[in-house]
């Protein structure tokens, strides 16, 4: 049960919790489509603290809370408010604790959400910290795979792109390893998965670390493409030389199975050519649309709404 508990890493969500969230997300989806008024979390307040910009994630959380009938408060611009006055995260969290029922945090430093959860009795939801974890994105990704392909267990999943800094893939890889997925990790050598993560997957799942797309995706069920995050590079030349070193276009599509899907956390840069969008296997916009019902399910589970 995740009621009243923080979700900092995907490990905080048990297998049963995941299944409950999936079921609840399906219900939320139906509720949204029905157009009926939802008051599951009426009079409850969510506080969003975004220490680095991520409009997409913030809007998804805020939309989810509004849909549930709850209220949202947010620190408008963290950079100009308490942080620049030197306030610790711990103190900001103590304040948010007093004003809200659930706290959503995104922070550039790794471990920030865990630290936050130690300074409040309210549940904290990690919306991404450093190059660490982003569990709600992971749940949304798993939900998408399940919805698109009917199951997750045993699937052949290929992750492509920036596997070093890409925060979304790290928690996804950990989660997939619990589903006995056959995982292929394709990236330029300088953007390979960190050693410590590979170590954590251990022998739970079969993992192959590869350099090229070519000849490696014919049997793939899910091709998960990630973006290269420009802000992670100190040297702009390094960024330029890497971008476009892997790209999914119609040629790549041709080598894939008919009943496979392509996912991407969005926004994309050059990793997926626009021509791919027309193909039924392009699942990334459907994936993005799953963000709101999945986050509705997570927030209401955490607050004991359903």
């Amino acid at each position: 049960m995740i009621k009243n508990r923080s979700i900092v890493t995907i490990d905080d969500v048990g297998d049963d919790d995941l299944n409950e969230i999936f079921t609840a997300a399906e219900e939320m989806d139906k509720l949204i489509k029905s157009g009926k008024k939802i008051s599951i979390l009426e009079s409850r307040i969510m506080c969003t603290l975004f220490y680095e910009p991520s409009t997409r994630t913030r809007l998804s959380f805020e939309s989810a809370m509004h849909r549930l009938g709850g209220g949202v408060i947010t620190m408008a611009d963290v950079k100009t408010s308490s942080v620049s006055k030197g306030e610790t995260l711990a103190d900001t969290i103590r304040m948010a604790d007093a004003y809200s029922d659930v706290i959503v945090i995104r922070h550039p430093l790794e471990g920030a959400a865990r630290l936050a959860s130690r300074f409040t009795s309210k549940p904290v939801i990690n919306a991404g910290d450093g190059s660490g974890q982003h569990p709600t994105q992971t749940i949304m990704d798993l939900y998408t795979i399940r919805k698109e392909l009917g199951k997750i267990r045993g699937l052949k999943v290929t992750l492509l792109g920036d596997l070093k800094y890409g925060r979304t893939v790290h928690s996804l890889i950990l989660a997939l390893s619990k589903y006995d997925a056959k995982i292929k990790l394709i990236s330029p050598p300088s953007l390979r998965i960190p050693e410590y993560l590979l170590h954590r997957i251990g022998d739970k799942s079969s993992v192959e670390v590869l350099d090229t797309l070519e000849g490696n995706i014919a049997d793939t069920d899910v091709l998960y493409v990630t973006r290269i995050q420009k802000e992670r590079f100190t040297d702009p030349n390094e960024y330029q030389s890497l971008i476009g070193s892997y790209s999914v276009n119609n040629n790549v599509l041709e080598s894939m199975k008919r009943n496979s899907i392509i996912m991407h956390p969005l926004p994309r840069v050059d990793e997926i050519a626009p021509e791919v969008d027309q193909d039924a296997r392009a699942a990334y916009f459907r994936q993005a649309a799953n963000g709101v019902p999945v986050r509705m399910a997570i927030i209401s589970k955490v607050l004991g709404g359903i």
Partner: protein
Amino acid sequence: MTEDQTLKISKIKEGIVIDHIPAGKAIKVLSLLNVGEHSGHTVSLAMRVKSKKRGFKDVVKIENRNVAESELSVISLIAPEATVSYIENYNIKEKRMLSIPDQITGILKCPNQNCISNTKEPVQSSFRVLSREPLLARCEYCEREFRGNELLGKL
């Protein structure tokens, strides 16, 4: 230690004796305890003393000094088989065998520069020990795993 060798370092009235330190690591133990030129403690040190258990060892005696639990846990990383004797009025009041704890709190810094525990937040660093031999520990905050040399390198 044989009686003969005991005489090489004088007995102390009050303080601590750390014995069975791996040969050559005594200085590291002292720096860990911040015992040095300016600390004001009298230190006796014996390096490469013959040991019954394993070849050679180091022994450290520090007068009028106590050790905190957190310090012991970090010493145990360098000297997993060390013993610490607490001396009062020339007598051993208590003797403890060190062992690497399940949790290492404080003193060590997280080697991950991007970890929140390295900022001015009001928390101590904290590592969960996953394996003792070889040492492997996970930061409670950034969740990264580090080997012994990575953790101790910054001391």
